């Protein structure tokens, strides 16, 4: 969420254990104002912080014209005062960074190590293949992953115009209580990875300019997100089980929403072992996810899918289709 609304948002995020002191707010605000001025961002989003053993990383994301494409990331090693641009992760660092063990230290030049196992290795010996990357690379991989997997907006908050430009919807009026308690009302803020029709086939009231993003209901396993409404039923709180420490909120029936990540920066890969899909979640998956899963299953067998269904041509073309739709 834009840092200008951070003070306001903290009222809603405080319930998840994160509060900022007055001093911190003041310092961060002034630093971010200068950062925005220097870089001429339209918006400057506060991502959160990654807790290191010695220092914390404060993270922001500057947004230009397009909400999804024009993004620049910055991190700060002292509490939100001096900002350094975060490099884009290479493809292999992306995987290595997420597999790194241990905590972040808080020093960008520190080593982060992980163990890799060659694909064709017959037996795995502990500590045999250690790969070391710099913590800055790991940080950038982690931030990209968080943005990719966690950043969510309520449906309708972002809009895509005829030119393909994505921007905030000024006429967004918020989700109702019923809508906000369902997974398919929250969308990933990322370039769509699922087939473009996956969202809209289950919506009677679909709107191509709103439903162009991936819904979190498609994430697997079912129940890897948590949605709670607060005691007075004014705010819905989202939590990702893959990234403990991620909290999103949406104040019902208002255009206010946002999210924050305050965690160790370590992805919890164990989610499938850790949850018991409750019956109501299963029901949701039947109503909304069932058809997706079925189609996905069809899509894996490409020949069959092509033969049976002309416009659904399997997983390999998903991204292509998404891009095609981008261009439209």
């Amino acid at each position: 969420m834009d840092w200008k609304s951070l003070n306001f948002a903290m009222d809603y995020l405080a319930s998840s254990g994160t509060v900022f002191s007055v001093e911190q707010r003041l310092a961060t605000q002034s630093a971010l104002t200068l950062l925005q001025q220097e870089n001429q961002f339209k918006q400057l989003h506060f991502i959160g912080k990654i807790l290191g053993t010695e220092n914390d990383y404060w993270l922001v994301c500057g947004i230009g014209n397009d909400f999804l494409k024009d993004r620049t990331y910055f991190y700060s090693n002292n509490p939100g005062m001096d900002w350094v641009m975060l490099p884009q992760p290479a493809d292999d660092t992306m995987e290595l960074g997420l597999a790194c063990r241990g905590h972040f230290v808080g020093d960008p030049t520190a080593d982060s190590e992980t163990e890799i196992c060659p694909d064709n290795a017959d037996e795995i010996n502990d500590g045999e293949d250690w790969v070391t990357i710099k913590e800055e690379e790991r940080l950038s991989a982690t931030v990209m992953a968080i943005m990719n997997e966690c950043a969510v907006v309520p449906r309708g908050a972002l809009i895509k115009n005829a030119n393909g430009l994505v921007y905030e919807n000024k006429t967004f009026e918020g989700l109702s209580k019923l809508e906000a308690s369902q997974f398919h009302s929250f969308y990933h803020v990322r370039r769509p990875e699922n087939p473009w029709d996956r969202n809209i086939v289950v919506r009677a009231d679909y709107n191509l300019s709103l439903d162009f993003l991936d819904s979190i209901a498609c994430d697997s396993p079912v129940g890897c997100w948590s949605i709670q409404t607060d005691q007075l039923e004014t705010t819905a709180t989202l939590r990702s089980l893959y990234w403990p420490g991620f909290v999103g909120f949406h104040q019902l029936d208002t255009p206010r929403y946002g999210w924050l990540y305050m965690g160790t920066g370590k992805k919890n890969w164990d989610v499938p072992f850790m949850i018991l899909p409750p019956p109501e979640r299963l029901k949701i998956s039947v109503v909304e996810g069932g058809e997706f899963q079925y189609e996905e299953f069809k899509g894996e067998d490409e020949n069959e899918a092509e033969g049976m269904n002309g416009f659904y041509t399997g997983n390999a073309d998903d991204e292509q289709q998404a891009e095609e739709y981008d261009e439209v």
Partner: protein
Amino acid sequence: MSKGEVVGLKNPEEYYAGEAAEDEDDGIICRCNPCECETPPEIEEEEEETEKVEKPVEIILDQNGDAYQLDEFMRAKAYFLQTSNKSGLNLYDHLSDVIRKFLDERAPNNPVDYLEEVSMNIKRYRFGIGKMDPLQDAFHISEPILSDAKRVYAYWKAFSRWNEEKKEIEGEGIYMGGSFQNLLRLQYYLEQINIGLPREEMFRVALGIKELSATRPQIAKLRFWGKIFGIQKNYYVIEAEFKFGSAEQTMDLWTPSDDTADKNGQEGQQGIPPGTENILDAVQTFSRAKDVVLNHEFLTAYSKTSGLSPEKQADLLPKPTTFYMPGAPEWGGEGETEMIEFEDPDARADAMKWEGYQQELMDSFPQASGSESSQIPMEPEGSGVNRRAFYVCNVLGGDWLLLPSITPQQINISRNVRWFLTGNLNSEVRTLPPFPGKEGHYLRALLARITAGGMVSPKGYFKAMGPEGELPGEEDDEELEPEDDEPPPYGNDNVLAVKKYQASMKALTNPSLAFWVHHTAYVLPQGRTTWWNPAVPKTGKVKKVSSEDGSDLDEDEDEEDEEEEEIPGREMGPPLFQSITQDKAADGRAPWSLVTSSSVFPEFQVVAIRSNVWSGSNVICTSKGKVSNIYLGDGLKFFPRTFAPPVPPPATKEFRAGPELEETPDPTVEAEQSWLDKLALNAIADVEPKFIDNEEEDVTADEEEEDEDEY
């Protein structure tokens, strides 16, 4: 309606001539129509009808009338006025509404960018979504909000000052409460290190603590432990310590309730103690297997494994009746005893074999003793991991539930699994190895572990009390030499905060963290804080043992040392008040991180220590020496690798190979008949028993020889 208009519009010149002059004024009003925001839609539609008819007239007059242009215009308008088969709308009305909305509201800026959304919203409202909903229009406050308001109101009634006078008149007296924290002040300090909860929540927790301490006289001390986030709901946790000797700790006790628990409950009502399900099944099995070979001794051996009292064991047994032999028909007569004289050597051999088999079964019958870990006794309430009790609730303002005491098995298994809390105490914990209990038990195990691992304090803030809670009368005198004391007995973490504690910010902010110590007892790998010796069979009650342990340690350290040397495999943890510099994290990084608050005002600085092992566990110390522990997290221990559940154990062997499982060819009818005849008539032994397995022939032959010898 639309048809009529279209028909009418086909001959525009007709009205054009006649009505032009009269309707000029109307036409002008029509043009301004978009500005009339207060016009109700119905009236407006009516006006539009007239307007649609008359507008062209005016326009044409203004534009100095060209018939051709008029025709084009009318056609375009007719097209706009086409009513959709699907929605019943027409574009003309819709556009005028869109334009009016923009003009009325003058928002947002850059209206052209939001044309689509505004248009969509207008369509939506036209269909009545969000406006015409009778449920939404009716006044309604949902049930949870209402009950919450009632509850809070009741609190005020109960606790607020202006009710005190009234109560004194009624003779109820003022509430007596244990000590509790000032949570709002705590929140202020937490805020300095960028954690905390909303003030409203803190205040509600404080209300809950106040209510508990006012209504539960057995509670000595209450403390806000923290908040644990779950998938569906969150847990607020209050740590309680009971007064010594108070037996009423079952008042708010949470008991697991679901299908299986209900079943147990029903059985309990029928007078059968819980936990006997398996034995009951065994009775049924036995009764069904009446005709199968089972003798009384065998059953006695089996029933001894049930762990019941001897009288109840006897109930499990079928009444001792005839001793049936394999293959022997039942008609042997009821008066017959086990001492059957077998004149037939084959039958005797058979009987011998069976007796041997049964003897062997009885000797090597598997005992349901279980592994060593299942024998480790639970620490009694009020000591060790169960010294603290925990109240939890999901919704502030709801009832606080006391979690049951934790067993070492539950602690140990909770160490080997990773599981997300859902927020429902009764939900299942489906892990491998299987967790013995519901989520409430798992939560309790987590609380015990986090308390043991994540609670630290500045050195010298806490002071050990006597082993069994001697009242700290002389505490103030001993204050001067706190650190020179002998370490408290092992496993006893009954500590008391030193009054007038002076915090040294310089020492506490030392990056080596040497001035921070654990003040909770370490939980041994056994799942207890005091080690239980499996070699010594437990005598008497567990409570006695643990208290003896403590006193032994106190009195004779030398003896204890000797014992330690003697007992192999004794588990030792670090002593109480050990510095956190000794701690180790699984990833080799620092297990604790130092957090300091303001860099501008060091006078008001707050120092905090954050656990990296139990993310979310924090302890703060202010410059005035206020120390507080709080946990705000997911209940997940930091785990450097990815978690892989163990492979399930191999299935146990169900049957032991014995004679009743051996395959034997069925006897022919003749053979069977002859065998029956032989038995019935007590026939002579020279008839070959056909149905005995061929392998036995040698034996029988030998026996025959022996028999012959005897004769």
